[in-house]
């Protein structure tokens, strides 16, 4: 029997949702191809356009596979996998004509949803996924069954204990390929420990969230004091900086339990950086070894291939007072006006604090803080400092540190994040990519002190955080950047939209946090209380497998699209043929039941019950008075009695 795709509204809707969820993750060409294919299918079904033959679609799918393999060299990563699944689904929709296609398409739908959930933990995707999942499921249900919803609910209830069991007990394996986001080495966070001019502004243009922080007992009320160290750069190339050598050591096993701490939920970055609040003494990340550098930055041994939660221990002031060597005075050879400026300062023979004042004076002049400073090429330092005077935080930090070194003050550039947005609903801070920042640390008065040149150029940026700052239009940015009295949007009255977004963010955060928190270590903790983790894992795994098989078998038997009445007749027939009374295909079931009743009078009652049930269900189309299960029970009981009797 031929099937049409669009006439099954819920199914086609679910399929399109499932595809749509992945469509944002692949290249536009693929998305367009899928839309075109679905549109074509619509045309063939309702406008009688010519149908693409299976040969054509088959050839297209081979082409798709070859294209993906040529482009990505693998299928084992996010984008190639998504592309392949999407393309295949679209082609299969075009092919869609019979029950077999339907099953295949449903399988593809499940794969699409699975793939999406593998790469995204976001709460928001749960809603469309659930809708699509229900749609796909319900399309598999036998059409004869009228109570599909109750059937679905039943299945959900059956599967609920298993889902819970799997969640709590299924062995957590870190699968690098499962979370890797494709060829992009930067990862989603895009953070790197080099400050090329413009690199940071590139990061800050992204809309993505970097990480979320829950402060347990640290009280900050302003994002201004929120400096998140990522990496320290010590090699100056003028305006841009590179990381120098630093020693890494593992964190000492000390008892931090009495210290103040905060929890960071970070998205997968594919990198080793851990962002730590300025003043952090140690970081604790399960399943990964954390290394501390001499600059009080933290790195993991294995890259963060999946989202994680780590805990930072914080002291109000942990002073880095190690006296720097001459490496911290390295600069490239300066030229032109910057050299002149340096010579000028040097000739004045100033004291250290005066030098610092001079630097501040220089940077307090008419500079513009912008995300789009244009690119600096040749003689970048002079162009930036004296000609264009437009830059992003890394320009100010880089230039400041280079000049400071040139006039004899040891300095380094720190990159990371600054600011964030407080969510009053969930009481956590959200640090987004817009908060990416760079600042300077100089060694003065026998300790490293933080200097943020941006604070002279655009104090508002530090005051309200990057996200809010960049949401202002450019003129407002210019206008307000020097004034701290921001009256544009009153901070007190949180608008409805803000409230809603806070609430959504909070929900999302809780969800992610819950999923992440519950990883292997807590699982182990739970099980170790009962018995050995490995043994229990094995047992659960086998148990889950068996349950799965059982459930699948049950599902399959339902899948044969037989209803209870038909299954009852099947049972009777099996029994009948054992007794030598089989049914000829042309014999109507009811007539057969009557014949059996005549031959086996002891089954008369049960048979007549089955007869009534079957008659009602199959022919009259009315609900039988006794349920199929009851009838089956009666029948089984009777048959047992006969079987236990010795045959005459």
């Amino acid at each position, binding site marked *: 029997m031929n099937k049409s795709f669009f006439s099954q509204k819920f199914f086609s809707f679910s399929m399109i949702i499932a595809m749509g969820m992945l469509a944002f993750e692949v290249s536009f060409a693929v998305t367009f191809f899928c839309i075109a294919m679905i549109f074509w299918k619509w045309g063939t079904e309702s406008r009688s356009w010519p149908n693409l033959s299976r040969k054509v679609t088959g050839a297209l799918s081979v082409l798709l596979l070859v294209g993906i393999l040529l482009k990505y060299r693998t299928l084992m990563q996010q984008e190639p996998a998504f592309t392949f699944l999407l393309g295949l689904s679209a082609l299969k929709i075009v092919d869609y004509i019979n029950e077999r296609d339907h099953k295949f398409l449903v399988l593809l739908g499940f794969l699409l949803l699975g793939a999406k959930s593998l790469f995204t933990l976001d709460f928001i995707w749960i809603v469309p996924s659930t809708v699509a999942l229900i749609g796909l499921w319900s399309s598999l249900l036998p059409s*004869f069954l009228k109570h599909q919803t109750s059937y679905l609910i039943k299945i959900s209830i059956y599967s609920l204990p298993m889902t819970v069991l799997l969640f709590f007990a299924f062995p957590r394996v870190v699968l690098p390929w499962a979370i890797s986001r494709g060829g992009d080495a930067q990862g989603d966070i895009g953070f790197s420990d080099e400050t090329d001019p413009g690199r940071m502004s590139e990061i800050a243009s992204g809309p993505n969230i970097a990480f979320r922080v829950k402060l347990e007992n640290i009280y900050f009320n302003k994002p201004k004091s929120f400096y998140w160290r990522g990496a320290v750069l010590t090699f100056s190339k003028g305006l841009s900086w590179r990381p120098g050598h630093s020693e890494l050591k593992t964190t000492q096993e000390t008892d931090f339990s009495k210290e103040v701490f905060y929890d960071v939920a970070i998205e997968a970055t594919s990198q080793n950086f851990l962002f730590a609040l300025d003043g952090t003494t140690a970081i604790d990340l399960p399943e990964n070894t954390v290394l501390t550098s001499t600059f009080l930055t933290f790195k993991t041994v294995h890259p963060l291939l999946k989202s994680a939660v780590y805990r930072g221990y914080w002291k109000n002031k942990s002073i880095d007072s190690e006296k720097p060597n001459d490496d911290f005075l390295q600069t490239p050879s300066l030229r032109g006006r910057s050299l002149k400026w340096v010579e000028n300062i040097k000739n004045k023979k100033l004291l250290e604090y005066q030098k610092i004042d001079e630097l501040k004076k220089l940077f307090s002049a008419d500079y513009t803080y912008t995300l789009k400073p244009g690119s600096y090429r040749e003689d970048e330092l002079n162009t930036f400092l004296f000609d264009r005077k437009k830059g992003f935080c890394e320009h100010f930090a880089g230039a400041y540190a280079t000049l400071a070194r040139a006039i004899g003050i040891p300095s380094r550039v720190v990159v990371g994040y600054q600011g964030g947005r407080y969510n009053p609903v969930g009481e956590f801070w959200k640090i987004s990519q817009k908060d990416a920042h760079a600042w300077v640390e100089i060694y003065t008065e026998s300790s490293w002190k933080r200097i943020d040149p941006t604070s002279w150029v655009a104090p508002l940026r530090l005051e309200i955080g990057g996200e809010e700052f960049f949401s202002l239009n450019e003129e407002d940015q210019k206008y307000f950047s020097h004034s701290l009295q921001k009256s544009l949007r009153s901070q007190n009255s949180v608008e409805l939209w803000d409230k809603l977004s806070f609430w959504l963010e909070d929900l999302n955060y809780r969800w992610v946090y819950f999923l992440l928190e519950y990883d292997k270590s807590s699982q182990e903790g739970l099980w170790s209380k009962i018995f050995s983790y490995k043994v229990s894992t094995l047992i659960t795994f086998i148990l889950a497998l068996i349950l799965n098989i059982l459930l699948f078998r049950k599902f399959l038997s339902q899948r044969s699209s037989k209803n209870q009445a*038909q299954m009852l*007749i*099947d049972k009777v027939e099996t029994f009948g043929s054992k007794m030598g009374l089989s049914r*000829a*295909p*042309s*014999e*109507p*079931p*009811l*007539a057969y039941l009557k014949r059996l009743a005549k031959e086996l009078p002891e089954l008369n009652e049960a048979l007549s019950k089955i007869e009534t049930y079957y*008659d009602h269900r*199959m*022919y*009259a*189309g009315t609900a039988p008075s006794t349920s199929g299960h009851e009838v089956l029970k009666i029948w089984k009981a009777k048959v047992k009695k006969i079987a236990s009797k010795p045959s005459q």
Partner: protein
Amino acid sequence: MNKKFHHLISEASKIILDKNAEIRLAATCLLAGGHLLIEDLPGVGKTTLVQVLAKLLGLKNRRIQFTIDLLPADIIGGQIFHPQEQKFIFHPGPLFSSIVMADELNRASPRTQSALLQAMEEGEVSVDGTTWKLPRPFYLIATQNPHKQIGTFPLPESQLDRFLMSLELHHASKSTEVTIFQRKDAKLSMDQIESLFSEQEIIEILTQVEEVQISPAVALYIADLLERSRRPDFEGMQLSTRAGLALVRAAKAWAFMEGRTYVRPEDVQEVLIPVLGHRLGGSHGINKGREWALALQKNTAVPV
């Protein structure tokens, strides 16, 4: 079974002995609103059956004896000039009654046979451009002599298709004949029959039969039967959708007689041979068709 129908059959079988099944099928055919074809030798009780049924159902019946020289106007009626009124007035023929028994239909010329076509299909006749409605209900019960008798014009397939059922009345058994010979003339006892239904009731029953339900399983069974007849290895004629519809109607009527509001595959099987016999036979005759119908039933699985 519905009491009233039970009564009908038992009354009828008092006069027509040993023909319970045939009486029941004939009654089913009428309840389904279909025309009936009876094929058998003369003198086996065809006319009696029709008369008894007509009487019990409370319907007027007429009989037309078909001969080779019978003209269409002889059965339909015609325009006759009235000199007093100076105009033609239509005089309805014997076709204008509820049950028309067309005796020895295959003795008539093809022209006269086809004159019945419109009447059977549409329940109306056209004379000189004017359409005249036949009474409702309108049944045509035709009898015909077995195929190979001399002087017969076999009915074309298109016309055979218009009969819902075809029946055979075999010779009565010896013991039945002994009883028949001993009792009073059937014609005398026929006068004592009281009709069980009125014309109005029959019309109501016809609509009720139409409302009998066909479940997907039964519909599938009928579709399977049709499909089977269209396979290359099947000897008989291919069954049309109209044949399938006929089967549905007859099965509904049978179920209704049983007192049910839905059809079972058993009902279909009960009416299968009379409904399909003349359709499957084609030029091979109804007898052959009945054999094929039986084979068709045996070879088609009932959907479970």
